[in-house]
């Protein structure tokens, strides 16, 4: 498998902060690679160095075989960037933006197809300022892929979008992957990382603390698995003594048992329920999500 991005021992030091401390990773061609972590973890700095917008202090980077620091303009012909909070001129019309930006590139993508896919073709004469948040986001995505780039960098692509628009954005991004593009996404939303990414790197204090598929990450790092059910007559004290139960909590009518052994715990729960004549409804297993892992990793190291 060939790599689109290779980063080796990357360092960046600001005046009073060692923002990136020896980060290494590779992104395969055609992969959706997620970068997650709390604010100030070094995500944005790392991405900006990859894009050639910031200088590194140490380390080796190769993007499509190019060094972003030495060949930033050559590189930008081949990559597309969508920033989190950039806009274009308020009074620029959609079609004007598309024409202007596509003129900057040597290579032209199939613009009518891109516009149709993003649904922008019916807004061609609308000024940027009159587009809603989701459509603005679509336009800036269009501008990032207008030259048929090999790698696309997306910074918080669904921030500020309503749930429907967010799902649309995800399926657009998956479509891009199917076209063979490599995609690097930074995000705060663990759900986004889980739904979208093939692999996820977790940043914390300038380092990668974990890097794997979302499923593996959760399995590997998140000991906490839950079972939940609804019962009016279950006795919480008795539940606490069940094998494997670490914690029993109760909110509204739902009872939640955290366990490191789902099988034994549930078996004993049902035996106990039969013995005592409790009624158990809505029983289910809940596997921890990346969200839980994020909170766990971002906060102080807590023992499971």
């Amino acid at each position, binding site marked *: 498998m060939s790599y689109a991005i290779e980063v080796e021992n990357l360092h960046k030091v600001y005046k009073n902060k060692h923002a990136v401390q020896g980060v290494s990773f590779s992104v395969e061609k055609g992969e959706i690679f997620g970068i997650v972590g709390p604010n100030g973890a070094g995500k*944005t700095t790392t991405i900006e160095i990859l*894009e050639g917008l910031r200088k590194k202090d140490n380390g080796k980077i190769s993007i499509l075989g190019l060094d972003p620091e030495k060949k930033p303009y050559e590189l930008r012909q081949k990559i597309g960037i969508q*920033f989190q909070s950039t806009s274009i*001129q308020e009074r*620029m019309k959609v079609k*004007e933006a598309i024409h202007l930006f596509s*003129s900057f590139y040597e290579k032209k993508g199939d613009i009518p197809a891109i516009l149709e896919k993003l649904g922008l073709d019916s807004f061609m004469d609308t000024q940027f300022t009159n587009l809603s948040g989701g459509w603005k986001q679509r336009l*800036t995505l269009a501008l990032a892929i207008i030259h048929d780039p090999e790698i696309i960098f997306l910074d918080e692509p669904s921030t500020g979008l309503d749930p429907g628009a967010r799902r649309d954005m995800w399926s657009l991004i998956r479509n891009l992957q199917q076209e063979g593009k490599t995609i690097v996404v930074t995000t705060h939303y663990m759900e986004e990382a889980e739904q979208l990414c093939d692999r996820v790197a977790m940043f914390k204090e300038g380092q990668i603390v974990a890097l794997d598929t979302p499923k593996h990450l959760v399995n590997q790092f998140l000991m906490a698995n839950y079972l939940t059910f609804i019962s009016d007559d279950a006795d919480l004290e008795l539940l606490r003594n069940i094998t494997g139960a670490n914690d029993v909590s109760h909110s509204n009518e739902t009872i939640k048992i955290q366990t490191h052994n789902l099988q034994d715990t549930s078996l004993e729960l049902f035996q106990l329920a039969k013995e005592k004549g409790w009624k158990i409804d809505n029983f289910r297993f809940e596997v921890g999500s990346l969200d839980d892992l994020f909170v766990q990793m971002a906060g102080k190291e807590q023992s499971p």
Partner: protein
Amino acid sequence: MNHILRLTFMESKLFFREKQAVFWTFLFPILLIWLFGAMFGDQKIGQMSYSNAYIPSWIAINMLTTALFTIGTVLTEYREQGILRRYQATPIRPGKVLTAHIIYGTLIFLLSALLIVLFGSLAYNLDFPKYLGSTLIAIALSIFAIFPFGIFATSLAKNSRTSAAISSVILNLMLFLSGATFPLEMMPEFLQGVAKILPLYYVVDLLRQTWNFAPITDQLTNVWILLGIGVVSTILATRFFNWGSRG
């Protein structure tokens, strides 16, 4: 070159979509010329007729407002909104974006100057410049001094509100103290000294001189000072300009 032209064309188009900007740039000066004309219209100002003195003045003032607002403050807004950063993500060279803004500013300024001259000739019997070549060179030289000065002054601002405030202060200072509106002879000696540290003073003087009295070759002090302002501002503007990186 193609990129610069496209950007210039785009910016000019966007300018005309902002009705307020169009009003302030093109009609406001004419209103003021008319207003001042009602006050001083039949007076002689240092051997010049009203229009021969004030039309060059307003050309100079419009050059300054173009530099501060049409170019400088707009660039600050673009920096604030991440528009410059959006360009940075493309292969376009930053210098081209700046060049496009300077060309577009020049076009807007020349158009407004033309309107001012037209109004002056129709309403106040403006004389044609005595040394046309000299006047044109003087205008070009003044643009070279004033545009980078405006870009530098506004690039010190963190956001567009500060930028507009800086621009207003500079504009008002120069409007009243550079001799562009109120004749310097009316002012105490101290303020006449202040006038000479304002760039617009030299622009006004050079334009009035070449328009009414003498070719640019007789105005070397003004020429050297404006060249100096141009060089220093260009260096400072390049040094302090940034593309607005966040986080």
